[in-house]
């Protein structure tokens, strides 16, 4: 079933919309959630919660494309679960991905106060625009989707080592990009 038909089912308030959404994108959603949480059961539950979020959002939303819309909701729900789960332990792909970023984001306790999230998003987008398509995909697969190096390597057709080196360089560029804009000094 194509995305337009699935969205039409949401507009009709038909619960079949959820069933069709799960048939088509369930595996991709579970993959996003699993990479953040590192736990299949929690991922399953977060995906179900995300479906409820999609149900509440459509209508009025009429997302195009549907997959990135759903992935975003899955990521947000999974991050909330992650924060709840990891008050005491740290063990997921997301942990590792985020720890890498700690180094290039200098410790500034005033950042949250000084910079609204939206502004930071705009800065990140501007930074992403400076990267090549391949580097942008590697960066987002690592830090948006929390995918491990070997999976990224497989998806972009590079070696794992190559992906690792690219990420080191991108983080270095990110650090200097943000520093130049006096975000983290």
């Amino acid at each position, binding site marked *: 079933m194509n995305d337009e038909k699935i969205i039409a089912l949401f507009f009709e*308030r*038909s619960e079949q919309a959820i069933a069709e959404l799960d*048939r088509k994108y369930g595996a991709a959603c579970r993959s996003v959630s699993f990479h953040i949480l590192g736990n299949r*059961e929690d991922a399953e539950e977060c995906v179900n919660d995300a479906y409820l979020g999609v149900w509440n959002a459509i209508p009025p939303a009429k997302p195009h494309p549907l997959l990135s819309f759903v*992935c*975003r909701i899955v990521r947000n729900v999974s991050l909330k679960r992650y924060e709840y789960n990891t008050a005491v332990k740290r063990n997921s792909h997301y942990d590792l991905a985020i720890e890498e970023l*700690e180094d290039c984001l200098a410790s500034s306790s005033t950042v949250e106060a000084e910079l609204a999230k939206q502004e*930071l998003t705009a800065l990140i987008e501007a930074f992403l625009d400076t990267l090549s398509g391949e580097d942008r995909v590697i960066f987002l697969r690592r830090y948006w989707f929390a995918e491990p190096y070997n999976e990224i390597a497989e998806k972009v057709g590079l070696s794992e080592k190559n992906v690792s080196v690219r990420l080191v360089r991108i983080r270095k560029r990110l650090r200097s990009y943000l520093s130049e804009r006096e975000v983290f000094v």
Partner: protein
Amino acid sequence: MTSKLFSRALGDVGDRYLEEVLSYTPKKKKIAWVRWGILAACFCVVVTGATAGYRMISPGGDGSIGGDISSVYDPSGENSGDYKLIADENGFRLLFDDPNCYQIGGEMQVIVATLSFETMKEFKDAVTKGLLEDWEKAVIVRLFPKDATGAVKICDFDHLYVPKLPAGGETTDVCWGGETYSFGLAWENGITGTFHYQTKESFDRRYQEEYLDFFQKDTVTVTKTETLADGKTVTYYTTRAGELMNVRYTLTSEGQIITVDKTFRLRMENPELTESSEVPSGIRLYGTSSDGVWYASLYHFSAEPTDEWLISFALEEYTEE
């Protein structure tokens, strides 16, 4: 906590960035040694297959499956596959000779997690006769679950199953996700639904989470439970959506057990949703038989279906007409 803020902000980047990631196809980097590597890999697969007693099915030949075959496809043949279907004690798997080849695929505008086919025959032929298109192979390589060796875990193509449906029902499409596949269902009177052929593991997980543990969810509050004389369990509960009623019981017929799970919307927060204690808003069926496990989700009822109608659902082996 700057990394957390960064992660949150990153999460809000525009759709165009996600689209790029989801539709990204790397540039093909094929050099001479890769071709030799592929040849060597083919040789290894054949030798390993022969010595380990693999049953290897090469799409693109006569399309037959079964028997003890160890063959290598002919890459010059039109539409010939470049993968093998392997069956052994570890289950059924699909192994690409050169998975990197399909990292490039064709133009993939929207990446999907399942592949859709109009009919079971089209589905079976596409996989066993090597008729899959490049972008479909790219989806398989990227998104289908794999085992530790990198082979894609797939369903048993020697024994494919289709739903046996109550009168007037027909399947509208087949969605394939590796080990599992599902069907769209429709009846002339407007009832629609989906029917999923499952692995035992995925069925058990779903049954546990969506049936056995449903009323333990944080978002569900049970207000009353009663068991009727005919053995049905009726549960009244509330969620953010409103007040609902659930009726559960089992049906047994011809060697299969079907668990029936009906939901009725009693009072909904959303005024667009129809409320009724007589007509279910949805019915979930969980079926187990010697042929395998399945579940079906059914919607758009104009009246409550009879148990005779529900027990007509079954799993039957697919045979080509």
